[in-house]
C-alpha cells in the first residue's frame, strides 16, 4: 500500500469530527500549590490543538495528567466518550494516547529500535520463557522509520550518537509506532536546528491526515500557525482563551500568553 493510499484510507475510516479525548474540570494540587484549576480540553480526530502559555501556566502539568503520569486532584478524563481513570502512562498508552516529551524521554544508551519499542518489546517464547525478539524489533523499526521517511544510518545506532533532530524524529516515531489516536508533543521543535524544524512540522501534518489528534505545546508562534487548527491558552493554571486558528492572530495569542485579552 502506498503511503498516500494509507492516509486516505485512514481518514476515511475515522470520521473527522470524532471527539477522541476530553478533559473536564481538571484540577491538580501539589501540596498547597494549585497547578491546574478547572481546566477543560477537547481534541478531535485529525485535528491539531495548540496549547500555549507562559512558564508555570500549567501546560506540562496538564499533559502529565492526560498521559497518566500525574493523577488529577479533581476532574475527569474521557477517552472516546468513556470516563477513564489512569493509574500510569501504560493505561493512557493502551487507550491510544502517546506523549513526546520535551526532554525526549529516550534512553541514550539503547539503540533506536529498542527505544521505539521500550516497554512494549516484541518477544518470542522458548519453552516457558519469554525472550526479546531482536530480529522483529529491527524489522518493525526499519519499516516504521521508512513509513515516516526518517533517515538514520541504522536502527542499531545508539540514540546518544544522534543529532537533536534525529532524536526528535525517533521520539515521534516512538509515539506513533502503536497506532496512536492522540499524540501530545511538548515543544517539538525547541531543541532543533532551523532546517530540521520544517521536517518535524511536515511530520505533524502527515499525522493529522492519518486521523491522529495532535496536541502541540509550543512557545513558537511559527509552529502553532503552521500546523494547528485550534489554539488554547492557559494562564496561571486556568483556561484563559481559546479560538479557531483562522479567527485569531499571532499578536492576540501572544497577548493571551501574557494574560491580556
Amino acid at each position, binding site marked *: 500500500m502506498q503511503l498516500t493510499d494509507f492516509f486516505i484510507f485512514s481518514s476515511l475510516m475515522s470520521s473527522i469530527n470524532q471527539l477522541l479525548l476530553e478533559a473536564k474540570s481538571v484540577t491538580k494540587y501539589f501540596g498547597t500549590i494549585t497547578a491546574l484549576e478547572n481546566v477543560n480540553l477537547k481534541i478531535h480526530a485529525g485535528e491539531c490543538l495548540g496549547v500555549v502559555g507562559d512558564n508555570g501556566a500549567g501546560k506540562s502539568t496538564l499533559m502529565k495528567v492526560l*498521559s497518566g*503520569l500525574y493523577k488529577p486532584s479533581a476532574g475527569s478524563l474521557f477517552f472516546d466518550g468513556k470516563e477513564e481513570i489512569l493509574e*500510569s*502512562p*501504560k493505561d493512557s*498508552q493502551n487507550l491510544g494516547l502517546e*506523549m513526546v*516529551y520535551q*526532554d*525526549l*524521554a*529516550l*534512553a*541514550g*544508551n*539503547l539503540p533506536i529500535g*529498542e*527505544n521505539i519499542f*521500550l*516497554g*512494549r*518489546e516484541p*518477544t518470542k517464547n522458548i519453552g516457558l*520463557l*519469554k*525472550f*526479546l525478539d531482536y530480529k522483529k524489533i529491527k524489522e518493525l523499526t526499519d519499516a516504521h522509520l521508512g513509513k515516516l521517511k526518517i533517515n538514520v544510518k541504522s536502527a542499531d545506532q*545508539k540514540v*546518544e*550518537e*544522534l*543529532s537533536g533532530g534525529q532524536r526528535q524524529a525517533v521520539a515521534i516515531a516512538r509515539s506513533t509506532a502503536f497506532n496512536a489516536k492522540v499524540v501530545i508533543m511538548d515543544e517539538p521543535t525547541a531543541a532543533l536546528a532551523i532546517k530540521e524544524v520544517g521536517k518535524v512540522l511536515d511530520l505533524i501534518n502527515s499525522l493529522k491526515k492519518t486521523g491522529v489528534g495532535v496536541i502541540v505545546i509550543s512557545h513558537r508562534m511559527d509552529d502553532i500557525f503552521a500546523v494547528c487548527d485550534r489554539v488554547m491558552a492557559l494562564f496561571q493554571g486556568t483556561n484563559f482563551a481559546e479560538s479557531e486558528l483562522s479567527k485569531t492572530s499571532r499578536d492576540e495569542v501572544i497577548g493571551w500568553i501574557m494574560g491580556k485579552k
Partner: protein
Amino acid sequence: MENKDQEKESLYLKIMPYLEKYGILLLLVIMIVVMHFLQPDVFLSWRNVTNVFKQISWQSMLALGVFMVIVTAGIDLSVGSIMMLSLMILAIVAKAGAPWYIVVITPLIAGFLCGLFNGLGITLLRMPHPFIMTLGTLYIFRGTGNLISGGTPISGFTDEVRYLGHGRIDLTWLGLEKSQYLPVSLVLIAIVYIIFWIFMNKTRTGKWIYAIGGNPNAARASGINVNKILVIVYSLCGFLSGIGALILAGRTDSGYPNAGLQSELDAIAACIIGGASFFGGRGTVLGVFAGVMIMGILRNGLNLMDVSSFWQQVLIGSIIVLAVYIDVLRRDLGTRK
C-alpha cells in the same frame, strides 16, 4: 578538515563497538600473558589456575549482584554484610542439626530477603540515593549477624553443605591425574554468569534495567514500573550474595564475624574495572567477569612473586582510576555534544 573528521568518526564507529565490547578481555589476556612470562612454571599450572577460580568464586557472585545495581545507576554497599549475615544464619541452622538441603537453602533465602529489604527501603522510603539505604543496611546486617551468633565463629559443616564451595569434579576419566580436578565453584560461576547474561541481554526485564540506568524518566514514561524493577534488582543482588555465603561456607568450613568485610568495595571495583559505568546503563556481564578475573589474577600473580599486599592495594586502586578515566574518554568520544 571536515573530511578528516568524518574519516576519524567512521573509523571510530567501526572500531569502538568492538573495543567497547571486548577491550576488557584484551586487557585480561595481556595480563595472563605477562604473568605467564613472569612466572612460567607456576602461573598457568592446573593447580594455580583452579586456585584463582576458587579464590574469586564468592567475590564473583557479589560483583555480579552489584553490577546489576550499578547498571540502574544505583549502588549496593551492603553485599558484604548480606553475605556475612546469610553465612551466620547458615551456620546456626547447620549447628541446630537441620538436614543439609534446608541448610543449603537458608543463605539463599536470607540473602534474597536482605536484598528485598534494601529494594523496598529505597523505593518505599524514597531514600534520596541507594547509597544511604545500603550504607545503613551495611551496619544493620553485620550487626544482626553478630547478634545472632554472639560475634564468635561457628565451624564445622557437612560435606553436602560444603559441596558448592569445596567440592571437586574428578577428571581422571579424561585421562587426567587425580590432582587435575575441576572445582565445583568454577562450574557454579559459569552457570550463574550464563544465566544472568541471558537475563540481562535477552529478557525484557534485563532490557528495562539498562533503560532505567540510561534514563529513568524515559523508562517511567514508557510505562515501565521502575520501582518494581529496582526491587527485583536489589533482591537478586541479595540472592547472589546469599550464593556467595554458601560458597564461602564451603571454602572456609566456618561462619565467622569478619566474613566479607569490605568485600562490597572489591565488588564495586570489579564492576568498574569491567567497564560498568557509575552513571548507569552501561556495562556487560562479560565485563564484570573480566573485572573479577583481573583483580583475582593481579592478587594471585603478585602473591606468587612475593609482592607485599600493600603494593596490591596500590595497584588495584590505580587500575580503578585508570579504568574510569578510559570510561570518561570513551564517553567524550561517543556522545555528541
